[in-house]
């Protein structure tokens, strides 16, 4: 779609349109789908995101191994946290909810991956609820997120096996940051700023799933990534900028991913997966496929 965010920002500036609108136009130019089909695809994604969040928030969802589930409901209903009742808390609960549904073999939207599927709906739906955003505005916000993901895919990676969790929940946080600014009517410069501020907070993040399964810490990491996206949005809309261009931050992520030890790239060989308890949980709860 674009080789650099700089290139996308320049074109959006020239056309005087938002990043989301630019992404929709660029995707239409490919010629494989009409604009209406692309928007319908994104609306379907929104519907799946809403359904997954609603299902996760019931608290009835348990993962295949039984290790995770029910936590979204706790966050949504506990009055004890300092952020209870805020959009921040709602985004955390939403991210947990969708990722719990993923771990339970429910239907989700990989955004950009299944393992990071909670971040974008967590942030986007919480903000949209508050702002009473239109479906069209949410579609544009999703498109903006897609543009950011496409640039990261082009310059770095969206795979935990290649780049660690910075490439999955980190990329999802960057995408959610852009979507949030677009939804709230911020400028493209602010969206760019939010992406950079979110990404710097996840650089170096390893992929260390217990037992190799998309459960611990993935479910919680989706929630913390959502919080990082919101931090990026909050700072960027206040005028904060990190003085490193976003493309260079993405390149830094690629460099870190390339040199990251294989133990931290989805192999369950290091980090939380290799802790004594991580190893015990992997042995006790989950096993190879049984015969018969």
């Amino acid at each position, binding site marked *: 779609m674009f080789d650099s965010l700089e290139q996308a920002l320049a074109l959006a500036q020239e056309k005087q349109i938002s990043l989301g609108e630019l992404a929709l136009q660029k995707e239409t130019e490919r010629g494989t*789908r009409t604009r209406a089909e692309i928007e319908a695809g994104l609306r379907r*994604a929104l519907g799946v995101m809403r359904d997954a969040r609603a299902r996760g928030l019931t608290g009835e969802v348990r993962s295949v191994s039984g290790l995770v589930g029910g936590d979204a409901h706790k966050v949504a209903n506990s009055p004890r946290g300092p952020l209870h009742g805020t959009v921040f808390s709602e985004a955390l609960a939403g991210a947990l909810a969708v990722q719990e549904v993923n771990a*339970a073999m429910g*239907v989700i939207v990989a955004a950009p991956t299944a393992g990071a599927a909670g971040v974008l709906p967590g942030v986007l739906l919480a903000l949209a609820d508050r702002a009473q955003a239109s479906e069209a505005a949410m579609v544009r916000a999703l498109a903006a997120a897609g543009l950011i993901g496409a640039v990261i895919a082009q310059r770095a990676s969206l795979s935990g096996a290649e780049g660690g969790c910075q490439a999955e929940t980190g990329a999802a946080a960057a995408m959610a940051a852009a979507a949030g600014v677009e939804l709230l009517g911020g400028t493209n410069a602010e969206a760019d700023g939010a992406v950079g501020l979110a990404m710097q907070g996840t650089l170096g993040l390893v992929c260390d799933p217990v037992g190799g*399964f998309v459960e611990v810490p993935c479910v919680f990491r989706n929630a913390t990534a959502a919080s990082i996206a919101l931090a990026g949005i909050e700072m960027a809309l206040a005028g904060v900028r990190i003085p490193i261009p976003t493309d260079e931050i993405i390149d830094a992520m690629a460099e870190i991913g390339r040199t990251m030890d294989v133990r931290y790239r989805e192999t369950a060989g290091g980090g939380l997966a290799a802790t004594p308890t991580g190893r015990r949980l992997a042995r006790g709860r989950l096993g*190879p*496929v049984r015969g018969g």
Partner: protein
Amino acid sequence: MVSLLDIIGPVMVGPSSSHTAGACRIGLLTRALCGGTPERALIELHGSFAKTGEGHGTDRALVGGLQGFQPDDGRLRDALELAATTGMQVTFATTKLRDVHPNTARLTVERDGQQVIVVGSSLGGGRIAVCEIDGLAVDLSGEYPTLVIVALDQPGTLAAITAELAADGVNVASVRVSRNRPGGVALHLYELDGLPIPEVVALLAELPAVRTVRLLEQVS
């Protein structure tokens, strides 16, 4: 080039695009190769599929695919139970295959007295490759409509097949022919840019060297 709906998507049953969505697609392609839901299936899991298959629902996804469920079908979670209620016999085993991707399964399926053995790998992001059919090396992605033709290894067979396709205006995106031995049985795979009309498929089946023709629709 990556598309917007690849980044915001696909819609799929979790938890893993490689271990769940990809496994489902391997099941779907195998189902297409045997012409429908098999009556019996032996599923041998290799590498990461064997090691972490259960927690990722790989077993359920493969069996769901064999029953024709798509990667976004919520029934995947209950695919083993659903197979049991319809009388499909499924056996699982682990195996070690040589020179294959870590996420690989070998499926031996039977339907209407015919057996097909398929080796398929999940390459990541839900993309797959079938690398072996009945012991013959192939490379099949399922991203295109594909003609799978078993024919005698005779001169002119390829030309006769492509001539029929050309007459129907169907463009061939890729072609691969492999055989067990010179003059033996050859497996032809034609990945196509469009679907040939049924009459053309029937004509192909009547070519002298051709034993069987199977048209696989895109597995997406």
